């Protein structure tokens, strides 16, 4: 698998550390109800198809990346800096 880091360019997946669904970006407010925290911490979809993952370029530039890929075809559809994605959302 190859991931194109927006900072470093195309690299082998061995340079990256995988954490899971990009839902981790959407941290609830401190006073959010327990259901919101439960969903944020524990609940993850397991889609056959397009998914958004967080990857960390640990052996590169230390950037956190949002990788959009297809779990069925393994196609990588897009890579963005998590800080950019988060910046747009805010």
């Amino acid at each position, binding site marked *: *698998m*190859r991931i194109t880091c927006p900072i470093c360019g195309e690299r*082998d997946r061995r340079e990256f*550390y995988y*954490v899971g669904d990009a839902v*981790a*970006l959407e*941290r*609830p407010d*401190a006073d*959010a109800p*327990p259901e919101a*925290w439960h969903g*944020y*911490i524990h609940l993850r979809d397991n889609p056959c198809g397009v998914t958004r993952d*967080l990857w*960390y370029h*640990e052996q590169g530039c*230390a*950037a*956190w990346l949002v990788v959009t890929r297809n779990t069925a075809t*393994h*196609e*990588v559809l897009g890579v963005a*800096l*998590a*800080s*950019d994605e*988060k*910046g747009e959302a*805010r």
Partner: protein
Amino acid sequence: MRIGGEGPIGRGRRIGFTFDGRAYQGLAGDTLASALLANGVRVMGRSFKYHRPRGVMTAGSEEPNALVTVGRGGLQEPNLRATQLELHEGLAARSQNRWPSLTFDILALNDLASPFFGAGFYYKTFMWPRAFWERVYEPMIRRAAGLGALSGAPSDLRVEKAWAHCDLLVIGAGPAGLMAALTAARAGADVIIADEDTRPGGRLNAETIEVDGVPGRDWAAEITAELSGMDNVRVMTRTTVTGAYDGGTYGALERLAPEVAARPGAPRECFWRIVARRAVLAAGALERPIAFANNDRPGVMMAGAVRAYVNRWCVSPGRSVAVFGNNSDAHRTVADLLAAGVHVSALIDARHDATCSLDVPFYPGAQVSNAHGRCGLEAVSILTPSGEEKIEAECLAMSGGWNPSVHLTCHMNGRPDWREDIAAFVPRPGAVPGLVAAGVARGDFSTRACLQGGVAAAREALTALGRTAPEIDIPGAEDSRYDITPIWSVPGRGRAWLDFQNDVTVKDVRLAAQENFRSVEHMKRYTTQGMAPDQGKNSNVNALAVLADATGRAIAETGTTTFRPPYVPVSIAAMGVGGRGKGFAPQRLTTSHELSVARGAPMIEAGLWYRPSYFPAPGESHWRQSCDREVLMVRNAVGVTDVSTLGKIDIQGPDAAALLDLVYANTFSTLKPGRVRYGLMLREDGHVMDDGTTARLGENQYLMTTTTAAAGLVMRHLEFVHQCLRPDWDVRMVSVTENWAQFAIAGPKSAELLNGLLDAPVADADWPFMSCGPVSVGGVGARLFRISFSGERGYELAVPARYGEALFRELVARAEPLGGGPYGMEALNVLRIEKGFITHAEIHGRTTAFDIGMGGMVSKAKDCIGKAAAARPGLSGEEREQLVGLKPVGTVKMLVPGAHLFEEGAEAVSDNSQGYITSAAFSPTLGHFLGLGFLRNGRARHGQRVRMVDHLKGVVAICEVQDPVQYDRDGGRMRG
């Protein structure tokens, strides 16, 4: 035997080698198989299950029979294919799966019992008694059946790994591959062309075909020379592309030439990962056998292999050769044999309408029904339209047609398509993104079609790469039609082999179908067809054709099993190269490492780091003596220890304080510059992640300390919190763990030691407990922190790492006159247990801040990671197991980490467990064992007694529950 001929081998020098201890001679350029054939050796192996004598069948990596072992001990390599093993001086090969010798093998008795050994035999027979399976049946079966074996010694084979990148990877260097590479190379693309043979050319090396009016092999050499001379091309011979993976990544195994591998320090193999923007699969095809009774006799070979031995290696596999086929290749074989002066005793063509222009006994519409000669073919029986005949032959060259090598196109879950006109599977376009098949691999069988196909495939790749394909003339070559009438098995009595390597016959596949293992995947597993090292290269299509026939289905409908990487066997040593020993766990050494080792300290692993366990003094023979002395040394004088392995993260920026407030449970924005604070870090699920001290070096600069184990984890976490949660914050962080060497100086005389060393003395008024700041040591800028992990007055002095060794030497030299010295991890551990300081033994991932008695540290005034989740019911309260101190008060005076705690009268079973011990040590300060552990509602149970039971070590001790801080509870010694 060796014959005259045009093959390049004729000019080779002589090479001595041995097979099963007997000395032979071959020629440079020989494989072990061709050299053995040249010496008249016909039996090269024994079969897997029945121990049948077997001879070489093919001339390539698909060889199922001629498997040998070379080397001894850590250099022993089993199951090497004699057809690929390059002859070199001193080669000593041994046959496998036979005893006492290859020609007389006791276990050949299995062959007589074969009526009992059909498909599913083990499943049906060794059912009862159940306990016998592992202890009796399996070891017995494993001894009786098998191929080569490893020596059992750790592997000493040198293997390397490498990466390569290219625009176009061409897999296979036959006519299609060479033309594809040439086209792309002339267009300026970066090209890698890989072929598993020792020389490019593919079938051109084995045939008498002409290309562009010259012998095919000469044309291939010319093209190879042009390619090798170009800067943008890498020609990789002896390199098998083994797998296709996501993102245009391909695995490839390169075998180095024997003379190269023999150089000092050179590897035997190299495992490549090749990243290619585009790929052309020009891997050719594998010829398939025909199943008839005793078709596994030594001397029954593939027709294409016979042509290779005759044309390339100038070896005749027998004094008289019969040829049996169902396609036009049979005639080509006869022509080549006749041209080489080999006697051809019959041409048996299964096609009824076949005609023959060659001067040999010709049997159209006939089939070979049996083979005779146990240790070497003597004759074959044939069924002709007019009856049965017996024909003498020492070799039978058979061709059941060709299977395009579709394997790589199926590695990403693709399935091949059945083509009725050539009776073969061909790759489905687009099965592997970026890869196109060309030439025979695509089902184009004539040489001219291959040359054209290679150019066309390269054009397609070049277009995708945005390059313009150059004009290329397609060389002239034969363009004959491939004509085949499928024939899978010849009816008749006797066992007819499909899978030679795993001893699977037509009868076994029919039995599987009869017992309702009708799916090709079930049949495979029931019969083990295709599960040997050749992975069914020689047998898959035949077996599923037989299955299709037995189940009354079409071949396309029956389908294939799944092709998976690797295409050829790859040793674990090659695939995992670099992953052993220090490659798996690199060593991180502190600046004091050599001095510690020189003082006799045993070094223990702490993550990837190595830290001194203890420093033995003269006369000490047990670690406890050293440890006890070091503990008392720190308590009474001064000790020095290296703490550089703790993670150090430099955090800077206007929002550094805000970041720390979010990641730590407690508050850091209120910390004054020049001060240090203990911090507790939670995971978002409310459990403790890590702890450590963080110093505020300036208004906008903090230096965070993590535990040794969690340094990487915390760094990643901080970047996550910043980039993924608060990218708007202006803050940056960097790990400086390896930039600073840091030493703890602990004990009542620590200030005295420091003041002799620092350029300006430190006074308590300026340096109270938990203060920090810059100091100078011998003119070198350093950092001093007044912190303590021992419970004594303590400092940590940090210098740039290049001064670490000198500083440690100086600290120890100055400590010794004060009655002090270095101390190791054992003493460090005792000191912290006495003080109730926690490590990852306590914050092991399932404990909360409440559990360790730090619930009050979770600030109510601000949000922090883990705060919401930590407030969940069940993560605090009486039911929780809480941190306590323990000391033995019964007759047994010992505590054991990992032991569980029970009520005094309760039975020691898991349902009754009240908690467990996490850390324990003998305290020389207090004169008895001490423990830390977790006990249900433990903080309310100080003074009570519990029973500790360690079922593993058989230790039972009555303990008293007490405060985790068991020494100097008010901290007076530490604060000074």
